[in-house]
């Protein structure tokens, strides 16, 4: 065992391997991707023996593969981000009725904020809908422990189990002891045992529903009594009643997920402040609900005994709060429940220690405004008032990287469309960033693969408009092919622009069926997306280099002019895969300061110096190239009407050597 600084997702990967996981499958999505990548890396290093790991084509494929492995008795792990579970939900809801033999854990990462997602959906709710247990870690270490417990729980009841960390747990790091080597558990004797239970029929589903209900009741009880699971519903008491004062019932505080950590921090902060001022903190009791579903109702009812009030802290939905309300109602307790429903806590977005301090202060104040800790709390809150700088700051939204091939593809399509009325449907990936000025080339973005099918809806509803859909290569294989079949079958007039950069760029550069390289280190024959388009019946398919502006524009023009489904494959690798070329140079003598280069493509490597006075600029200033950012793609050079942009003649690029480290 060695202690290492591990990111949450790395820690969860280690925990799954230490639990003997044999089959791992997922689809990339922030904040979940590093789990599968870590398992693949440890396997490649020869440290994780016997595990099979893959990026599947999409989440549904991954979960179904995991189900098959689990039927054989293998311990199996599925990973995705919260919206990925929407894609895999068809499999999940049925799988719970069938049940599993080998421990089956679904790591589904939620994203309060949201920071990198389309929704703030709550997987704890999804678990309740699917009637599947869910564990909800507050910290990296707790998530590590929950992974092992989830496998045990899964096998105890033959149920899939969801482990639901959030971004701030997935992407937090802490020092952990992990095993140097791991071995996947052997399959149980005989492997897959054929029998009627594996075939879901209505009659069997009715029986299974009863079994599910029985096991949920049993699990809710385990959550309160089994040390393996009850450790995640930790109860803490603090504060003191002032001597001689009438006994005041303790404040009750419940929390789940990372909010539990914020509450512990907030209470520690309040206690530090109170101690420094020589006053006591009123008595309180705190419960973390780490087992969000089935709701540990008896544990919570016991926790609430004698408390007139409880406040609940949780991000996303009011899952624990609703469970508390239910527990209070069923037990007939006279407890006022505070949380999202009455505006006592945030109803969306991320919480924080600071926010919890404010909410707790309000909670204490409403119950006992004369308590001696109140002035101390007010003073602490005053010190937490935020400093501010009034100088206006330029917004810094994420942008397509300098040298990104998508920039050329978007520019070509915009040029080809000219002033034609068109709808440009985007999709999920780096290329969503094509919506920013000056490209302004993404009018819609909904969910994985939706751009292609939505374009068909626009084409049907507004036949006069040209409908173009952009889709990345990984998204293409994940969820675009059915949409293309639909366009061909129903004869919709759309143009699909396949932005093939040979990787899943947004989530960190994962392989996919179009690259053919697997996480097991094998190079399969890549699936040719163009051949897929042809096989699906797309009649007009063109191919272009997005950095060749004339060729790319001509291809886009021809495809857009075609009546019926057409496609352009814009193929050029992501800059993460391609070495940089020498940076271009802008001739300050020739630059007129017209800004055509900047206003056409918005490359972050081209800046404008309003103070530079070139001979041709007539006091307007001149454009310049940031050599540290420029990848030398050359897209900008032909845009200059005055020939002021030239690739640097034979300049050796210094980029590459140190960069990897600085960006690591």
């Amino acid at each position: 065992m060695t202690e290492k600084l591990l990111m949450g997702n790395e820690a969860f990967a280690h925990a799954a391997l230490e639990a003997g996981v044999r089959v791992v499958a997922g689809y990339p999505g922030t904040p979940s991707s590093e789990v599968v990548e870590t398992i693949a890396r440890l396997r490649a290093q020869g440290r994780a023996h016997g595990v099979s790991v893959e990026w599947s084509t999409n989440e549904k494929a991954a979960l179904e593969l995991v189900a098959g492995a689990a039927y054989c008795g293998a311990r199996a792990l599925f990973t995705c981000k919260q919206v990925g579970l929407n894609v895999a939900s068809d499999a999940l809801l049925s799988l719970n009725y069938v049940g599993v033999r080998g421990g089956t854990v679904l790591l589904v990462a939620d994203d309060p904020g949201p920071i990198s997602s389309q929704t703030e959906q709550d997987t704890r709710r999804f678990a309740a809908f699917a009637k599947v247990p869910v564990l909800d870690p507050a910290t990296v270490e707790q998530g590590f422990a929950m992974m092992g417990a989830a496998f045990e729980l899964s096998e105890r009841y033959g149920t899939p189990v969801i482990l639901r960390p959030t971004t701030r747990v997935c992407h937090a790091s802490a020092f952990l002891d992990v095993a140097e080597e791991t071995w996947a558990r052997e399959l149980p004797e005989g492997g897959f045992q054929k029998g009627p239970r594996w075939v879901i029929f209505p009659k069997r589903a009715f029986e299974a529903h009863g079994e599910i209900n029985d096991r949920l009741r049993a699990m809710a009880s385990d959550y309160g009594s089994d040390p393996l699971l009850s450790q995640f519903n930790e109860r803490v008491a603090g504060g003191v009643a002032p001597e001689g004062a009438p006994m005041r019932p303790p404040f009750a505080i419940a929390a789940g997920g990372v909010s539990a950590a914020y509450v512990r921090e907030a209470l520690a902060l309040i206690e530090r402040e109170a101690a420094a001022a020589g006053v006591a903190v009123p008595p309180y009791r705190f419960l973390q609900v780490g087992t969000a579903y089935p709701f540990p109702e008896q544990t919570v009812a016991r926790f609430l005994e004698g408390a007139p009030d409880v406040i609940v802290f949780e991000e996303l939905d009011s899952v624990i709060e609703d469970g508390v309300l239910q527990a209070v109602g069923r037990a007939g307790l006279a407890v006022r429940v505070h949380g999202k429903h009455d505006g006592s806590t945030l109803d969306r977005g991320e919480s924080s220690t600071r926010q919890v301090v404010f909410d707790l202060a309000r909670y204490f104040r409403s119950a006992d405004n004369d308590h001696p800790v109140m002035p101390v709390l007010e003073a602490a809150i005053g010190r937490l008032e935020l400093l501010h700088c009034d100088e206006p700051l330029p917004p810094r939204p994420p942008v397509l990287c300098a040298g990104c091939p998508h920039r050329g593809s978007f520019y070509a399509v915009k040029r080809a469309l000219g002033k034609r009325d068109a709808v440009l449907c985007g999709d999920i990936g780096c290329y969503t960033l094509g919506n920013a000025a000056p490209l302004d080339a993404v009018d819609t973005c909904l969910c994985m693969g939706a751009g292609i099918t939505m374009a068909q809806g626009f084409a049907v509803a507004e036949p006069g408009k040209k409908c173009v859909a952009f889709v990345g290569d990984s998204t293409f294989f994940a969820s675009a092919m059915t949409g293309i079949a639909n366009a061909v079958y129903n004869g919709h007039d759309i143009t699909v622009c396949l932005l093939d950069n040979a990787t899943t760029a947004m989530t960190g550069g994962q392989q996919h069926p179009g690259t053919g390289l697997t996480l097991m280190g094998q190079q399969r024959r890549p699936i040719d997306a163009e051949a897929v388009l042809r096989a699906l019946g797309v009649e007009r398919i063109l191919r272009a280099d997005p950095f060749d502006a004339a060729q790319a524009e001509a291809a886009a023009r021809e495809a857009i002019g075609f009546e019926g489904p057409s496609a352009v494959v814009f193929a050029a690798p992501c800059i993460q895969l391609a070495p940089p070329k020498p940076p271009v140079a802008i001739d300050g003598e020739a630059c007129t300061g017209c800004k055509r280069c900047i206003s056409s493509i918005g490359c972050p490597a081209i800046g404008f110096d309003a103070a530079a006075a070139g001979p041709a600029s007539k006091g307007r200033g001149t454009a310049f190239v940031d050599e540290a950012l420029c990848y030398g793609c050359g897209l900008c050079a032909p845009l200059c009407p005055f020939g002021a942009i030239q690739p640097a003649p034979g300049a050796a690029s210094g980029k590459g050597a140190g960069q990897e480290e600085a960006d690591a």
Partner: protein
Amino acid sequence: MLNVLLAGVGGQGTVLAAKVLASAAQSKRWAVRTAETIGMAQRGGSVVSHVRMASQGEELYASLVTPGTADLIVAFEPGEAARALPYLSRSGTVVTARTTVQPVTAALAGAPYDGAAVIGALRSALADQAPAARLVAVDDAAVTTAVGTSRVLNMALLGAALATGGFPLALDDLREAVRACVKPQFVALNLAAIDEAARQAAALG
């Protein structure tokens, strides 16, 4: 408890800087938690890394520095220093690079934002609102020019932050952490950046 926020632009190396600080704290046997910005913001957006160190044996639950409590903000870009200011505690220190990274929006508007003006505004904001707080503006270009690459900006700023005093980690703790965290072929460059930053800080007194 020591709360450190590292603020920069995607690609400037906040993640490695956080790892190095965490390693330095670990070698002092302090409990440490860090948190990162990963995902869309990495594409040239504003990014922050959080490092929390329980330097006095405190319990450490949360990985994020909560606004209003950072003891130290190390900003690799002046605009990002200003953006991160709400994190600073009233007695904290901001160490910022002077060199700006102009966002595309600034080029489109044709009006680059003025890093010196931002630093001036930061200075007066602290004077007005938090007289006990400190601001250190580092001539990062002088350091990276002396070392020969801007890729070591992150270590230059960490070096400057520790050299200007007040933070209970020594430059040698930082050097040791660099040796532990950075790929061997880049250790010398990163150490050179720390040395140069420390030398310039000392020269300024």
